[in-house]
């Protein structure tokens, strides 16, 4: 199991029956494949759809039916379509149970940076700022460190922010961290990983939960 699959599988176990969830582009999109059997979770795509289904076959692909990553998708029974203004009304209005996003940096205050690198990248924030401002629970799904081994979980973000004090949880291939008013609380570690190793690979100071537990196969739906 790759690190990314581990992250996707673990977050899928946090869903509850009847949840409305927005999955960000990239790693978070993978989570849709691991929803526990028998659970009804409805995925929202901010370009204007609730009830997003799996990727289509070549024959099914419809240019009028895409997700926010501009990928062709399918409809699930009970799906609905709406305009961008209504889509963001449901996001900003607090109707989404969970928003899962990727990140470049997260810090001890729950600040998130995931949209730009000044002078290097001109892409835009898309819907990320609205999602983190409006969703009831914001979960960051990302690999623990950069490809160069630098920490992405910092004392303070150095890149331009997407939102301030918006992140509730951080899930990486190594651990589950909850953002609390006191700081970053380490509540779960992956098998074969201990709190000391997670801290060694994290710039931010971690508070180790007295109830720290090791993730099991069941936490990955296996």
């Amino acid at each position, binding site marked *: 199991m790759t690190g990314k699959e581990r992250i996707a599988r673990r977050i899928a176990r946090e869903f509850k029956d009847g949840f409305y969830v927005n999955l960000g582009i990239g790693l978070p999109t993978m989570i849709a494949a691991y929803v526990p059997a028998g659970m009804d979770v409805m995925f929202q795509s901010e370009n204007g759809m609730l009830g997003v289904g799996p990727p289509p076959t070549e024959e099914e692909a419809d*240019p009028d039916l895409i997700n*926010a990553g501009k990928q062709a998708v399918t409809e699930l029974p009970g799906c609905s379509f709406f305009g*961008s203004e209504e889509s963001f009304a449901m996001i900003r209005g607090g109707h989404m149970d969970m928003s899962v996003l990727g990140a470049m940096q997260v810090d001890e205050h729950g600040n998130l940076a995931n949209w730009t690198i000044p002078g290097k990248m001109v892409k835009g924030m*898309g819907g990320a700022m*609205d999602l983190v401002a409006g969703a009831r629970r914001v979960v960051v799904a990302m690999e623990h460190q950069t490809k160069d081994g630098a920490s992405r979980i910092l004392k303070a973000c150095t890149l331009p922010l997407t939102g*301030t004090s918006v992140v509730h949880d951080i899930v990486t291939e190594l651990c589950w961290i909850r953002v609390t008013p006191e700081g970053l609380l380490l509540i779960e570690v992956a098998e074969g990983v201990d709190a000391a190793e997670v801290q060694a690979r994290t710039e931010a100071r971690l508070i180790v939960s007295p109830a720290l537990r090791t993730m099991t196969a069941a936490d990955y739906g296996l």
Partner: protein
Amino acid sequence: MLFRRARILMNKVVTSADVAVADIVSGSTIMLGGFGLCGIPENLIAALVRRRITGLHTISNNMGVDGFGMGLMLEAEMIASHIGSYVGENRRLETLVLNGKLDLTLVPQGTLAERIRAAGAGIPAFYTPTGLGTVVAEGKETRKIGERTYVLEQALHADVALIKAWKGDRYGNLIYRKTARNFNPAMATAAKLTIAEVEELVEPGELDPDHIVTPGIFVNRIVVGEAYRKPIESKFIQSGGAA
């Protein structure tokens, strides 16, 4: 009381995309519907590119891709400034912006949609939680209402809105198809002149009034698109079995 059928029929249909955009002048502020390449007014864009007007101020969520959609307007050097939320699929734009050749304003997607909606609804400004504590809020008024602090955002108007719908009638009533709806209905309300291109023109009464998304009052001109390419940007196709 009897209502008589009007003798002169209201008819907003124009004969071609070229006719529809013939009076749009250089320097105009133009909204363009669509999300990525989905639901973009591709025939109106092509007609606008043939006109070679310049100095346009565009408002659209994205900026097409290199070689299609608004990417064609960029390549024809028609655009002076752009307001959007995500332009990552257009490398040419990134280069122009980094070199200071094009004035780009990035706006959170939900704020963009609401600013357009507000303009059409006669709301001059509104408070939103989006972007608080980020560059988006710099220089803007903030206000604490209840427990939270909000950013004041202004309505966004345009001279012209170019939108794409699925079907419409000569009154300008429109329905959309699937996710090709996106920004189109909001933009239809926010411009002085709204031009809609549709795949199919139907007779008044054929569209179920309960299903009409954009009532004709918001549309000034309607034209049937001559041809549709409708490319899919990212075909992530199922390779067999459950995905």
